[in-house]
């Protein structure tokens, strides 16, 4: 649940790097072609891939995330910023 202590607290940059790598791998494209500021639909993520990205982030941050996050923050950079913010607020469990 959001707000519970994450085992890993990462900054936005690290989360963006993870997302780009994961999406590039999933869509079989070069990381250079994945624009972190483009809306997910423009990169070509449909709801199924978006959920896969979300699950990879759950594993990265070791916490449960809700799909609303994707709808509310529909670019890699805004999603990463939000997750980093949530990680910073949720307590001290350091990495």
């Amino acid at each position, binding site marked *: 649940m959001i707000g519970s202590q994450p085992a890993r607290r990462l900054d936005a940059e690290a989360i963006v790097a993870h997302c780009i790598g994961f999406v590039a791998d999933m869509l079989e494209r070069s990381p250079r*072609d994945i624009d972190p500021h483009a809306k997910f*639909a*423009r990169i*070509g993520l*449909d709801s*199924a*891939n978006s*959920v896969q990205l979300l699950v990879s982030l759950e594993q990265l941050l070791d916490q449960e995330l809700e*799909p609303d996050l994707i709808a509310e923050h529909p670019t890699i950079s805004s999603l990463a910023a939000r997750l980093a913010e949530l990680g910073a607020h949720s307590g001290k469990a350091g990495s």
Partner: protein
Amino acid sequence: MGATGSTSPSTLLEVLEERAARQPQAVALRFLSDHGDVQTAIGFEELRARAARFGRRLAAAGAKPLDRALLLFPPGAEFLVAWFGCLYARVVAVPIMPPRRVGARDASMNILEDCKPRFAVTSQAFASALRADVVDRTSHLDLEWMIADDGAAIETQGPLQPAPRPEDIAFLQYTSGSTSTPKGVVVTHANLLANLEMIRLAFATTPRSHFVSWVPLYHDMGLILNALQAIYAGGGCTLMSPASFQHRPHLWLRAIQRFGAEVSGAPNFAYELCVSRLQPHKLEGLDLSAWKVAFNAAEPVRADTLRRFAQAFAPYGFDPRAFLPCYGMAEATVLISAAARGRGAKIREVSKAALASSCVAERAGAEDGKSIVSCGKAAAGARIAIVDPVAGRRVATGGVGEIWARGPHVAEGYWGKPAETRETFGAVISGEGAAAWLRTGDIGFLDDAGELFVAGRIKDVIILRGRNHYPQDIEHSVQSASGALRPGHGAAFAIEAADGSEAVVVVQEIERALRHGADLTVIAADVREAVAEAHELSLHRVVFVPPNAVPKTTSGKVQRRLTRRLWLEGKLEVLCQF
């Protein structure tokens, strides 16, 4: 003798009434939250009472028999209350997928124009912003909107109008057909009841057999094969949302155990997803040994998937004899054939090359082998014929041809489309009299035991995660994304991705005048966005080619298969691909 043991009911409403009388408190429907908690539980009597109340509400609003009511509901049990309510009022229910985004350009507008409903019914849970957007976009159609669970008081208290007759239309299914020319399959009460009985016999259930399902209720598999079947057979159904399943596939498996489901099924991709997302720490204590019918339908059943799933879940008590591959389509209500219960999947190794030329032969070597899975024999009272689509003559046993079906479950036709109805539902086998058959558009063969093997499709439809996508719809969305793209000069097709799933590629011509000035990177992103929003589909590759690079017939028709082959072989002149 029908499912309830008394003299045969003639409509599903009669079955519901009988169950409400005999097992009023037994759970008919349950709905689970995204975390697997029970959010709603409705008994048979409550379902009957609430549905009848909604039927009276429709009648009080002036609903006449055969008026159409669009049902746009997010996942949940409320949809079924409204659906049965329509049946009570003799209103034709038209379930459709609710739009996901504001301004979504999906099939719903075209469906509205096609069936011209009088009512549009939804629930409180359908997000207000989305609802307001749909109401706004349909304001020119004079629709009467109803929020089924808003607690509005009903004026009339009297009994409903005469009960529907078997030959009356129960509902329309818009699950097949292109988004630009949607076709509503007309399902009568008689069709529905016949198919429900076929399914009951195929699954060999008892009134205690419980179902679990996350498949969307606006889809024939989710609605009929799961929810209505569970109500008909008597054991009830526990529902989850498809999004919950995608996010947390283990919740499906947990629910099967927790609610003692004897039956649960899904399209092939779901079994694949369970394997790829398997995390032992999420499955501790999972016991799937009570899961007796794991049906697999709505898209090609892959032998590889079944093997992987059986292997991955054997430690959790899953018995591969529970696999029950099925075949069907909305035009036949839903089920056409099903494997025998308890036998597991019957897999045959054939020559890939021979099958591509419409022959069944032993494979020539390891490279040539293809495993295909039997979809079982024709459902009880249904008949299947393999027919040469050109000559219209029945093919000898073991020969490959188009799959044709006949029986009381085959629907009347398409709403308001007499020509397409004649073509699809009125096919005649040469030399076999005037009997009308349904042409499925699928290719396959029957083995000596009468088991059906599906080998492919005649038409170019792409099936992804159990949903049909028509290439011309995807091409149209691609071309609408930018003025630099030549309308009518694109080809969308599927290729097999590394994991055996389908990936969609579009090859699209750029306008000659614009090919140097256009920023293809931006256009590719525009194309992806347009397709994702209109079809909920991720394009694997967007390939831009010069004018006339896409092969066409002499009459100008795009040759998709040839385009696909040329692209795979690297023989297309490509400007840029993304």
